[in-house]
């Protein structure tokens, strides 16, 4: 294996890690803070990609299209929290059934609205090129995705750790009654978390769009990845989700390059091993 192999696959790995973080951040937020295993998350991601494709078709600039899709999917998340998931607090099996129901409907409505053909999303023109790095070419857009993922991770950590909103959310999650007692609007906060988590998924769908494109089945391709990242990184830790994303990026890229025969199981074998050694995830803890 040449030095070039290690370099380009490392770049591939971190770029994919960035993409996975955009996918998993929202899931981690919702699950970590509210303990809702939102199995519609893949659907949110796909819906974001489709909305982004439509917005780009309407000649919206890329970043604006991403924001619009994030807003749209975020609103859907907020509505679902208010109308449906709120009633199922603590009922884990109910949450599984209901969010899968939502996922089914999103998949079917996307198919109905956008048809079966894959749709491409064009990145901003200035990122549509390959950069020459030491004798080979690497897509500029993927590096941008990585940068964006790092920025987002920093932003989210800052939001949770440094802002008043973050403090209120943590208080509400830790002890709802006491938080309400001191005047924190917990109910509105929970809707906000859901809005934020869903919006992140929608944003991820658009940002991932130029790489993955929007197609039927994107949701079911992505959902297991989000779950793996979060379980490996540990629940309820944005930093953990980021590290988990990077680990998966590396395992996937070097795994299939070095052991192509294990491509179908390359993500699952290490996950089983990790869970056997540390059932609570590598960072953070799995709730009992």
């Amino acid at each position, binding site marked *: 294996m040449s030095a070039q192999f290690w370099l380009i696959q490392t770049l591939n790995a971190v770029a994919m890690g960035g993409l996975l973080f955009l996918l998993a951040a929202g899931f981690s937020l919702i699950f970590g803070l509210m303990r809702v295993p939102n199995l519609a998350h893949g659907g949110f991601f796909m819906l974001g990609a489709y909305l982004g494709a439509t917005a780009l078709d309407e000649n919206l600039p890329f970043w604006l299209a991403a924001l619009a899709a994030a807003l749209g999917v975020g609103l859907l998340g907020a509505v679902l929290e208010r109308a449906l998931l709120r*009633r199922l607090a603590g009922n884990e*099996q109910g949450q599984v059934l209901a969010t899968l129901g939502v996922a089914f409907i999103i998949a*079917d409505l996307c198919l109905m609205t956008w048809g079966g053909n894959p749709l491409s999303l064009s990145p901003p023109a200035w990122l549509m090129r390959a950069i020459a790095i030491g004798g080979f070419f690497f897509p500029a857009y993927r590096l941008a995705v990585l940068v964006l993922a790092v920025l987002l991770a920093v932003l989210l950590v800052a939001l949770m750790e440094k802002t008043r909103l973050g403090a209120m959310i943590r208080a509400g999650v830790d002890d709802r009654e006491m938080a309400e007692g001191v005047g924190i609007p917990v109910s509105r906060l929970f809707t906000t978390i859901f809005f934020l988590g869903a919006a992140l998924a929608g944003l991820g769908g658009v940002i991932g769009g130029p790489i993955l494109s929007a197609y039927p089945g994107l949701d079911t391709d992505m959902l297991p990845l989000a779950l793996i990242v979060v379980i490996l990184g540990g*629940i309820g830790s944005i930093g953990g989700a980021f590290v988990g994303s990077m680990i998966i990026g590396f395992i996937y890229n070097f795994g299939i390059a070095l052991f192509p025969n294990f491509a179908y199981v390359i993500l699952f074998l290490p996950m089983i091993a990790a*869970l056997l050694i540390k059932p609570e995830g590598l960072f953070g803890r*799995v709730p009992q």
Partner: protein
Amino acid sequence: MSLRCSAARSLPALGLVLLLAVLPFILPGPFYIAIAHQILIYALLALSLDILVGHGGMISLAQAAFLGVPAYVYVGLSARAGLSPLPAALSALAAGTALAGLFGVLALRARGLGFLMITLALGQVVWGLAYRWVDLTGGDNGMRLSARPRPFGLDLGRPIPFYYFVSVIFLAALFFLRRFARSAFGASLRGTRDQPRRMAMLGHHVFRIRWLAFIYSGFLGSIAGVLFALSFRFISPQTMTLQQAAEVLLMVILGGPGTLAGPLIGAVIITLVKTVVSSYVARWYTVLGLIFIGVELFLPEGLVPGFARLRRRLGAALLARRRPA
């Protein structure tokens, strides 16, 4: 009083036996008889999963492996190795049960979402192996079974005999499950679900109880797997996808975990929407989604316990009205 009580308890069981017995004569043709036996096979798989979900409180996404692996073993041994049906079926059951034992050892180290994820991963590994180990499994092309067996001269290739064959096995499994639910072991399994620490303090071996539950569940699921192979005469990796595993789980949760009727009702609804309603409604996927959401909005404990609650409440309301009069 106790006599009347046990009679009342057996009444639904008797009703089910009667219904299954007369069903082929009510249904309008062989296609619907085939749907009926399919429902029973999926219901059996759902019931096997309910041992974990309903009684053990462990949401597993690996149950499709117990549909697929025994089916592969059965088809492989009879179509390729030329084994006769009974030894092939017994080997398939043994393989499925052994797999359950292995899965249990690995998965039971985690709880909650960790458990869910490790079962998901185990299921996906088996699926990936079936896909990739082409020499053994035929890859995505799968393997075909040329004929169903003819035990004691009974031609299982015909729809009605096969339907009764599946029905009898299903009823036997149901009987076993009822005994299981009421047994001391069933009670201790529910104990590990509700109060694992206390169970451990009382000297129960929590891990072993759960592991045995896994094995029971895998064994029953394997029966469904062999029946699946006989029914479809075909096995491919798609029998073990995550979607298939989720579908079985949905049957359990939809109908109501921890009940005997729940997984059966869940299997009836999901299979009917998939196979029959989808002939008439193009957006049947949405219909299924709406059913899930509707059930969670109005009967969040699942259909069977939900209706039982409504009936109790209705009964109480009627009683309350009668009393002042």
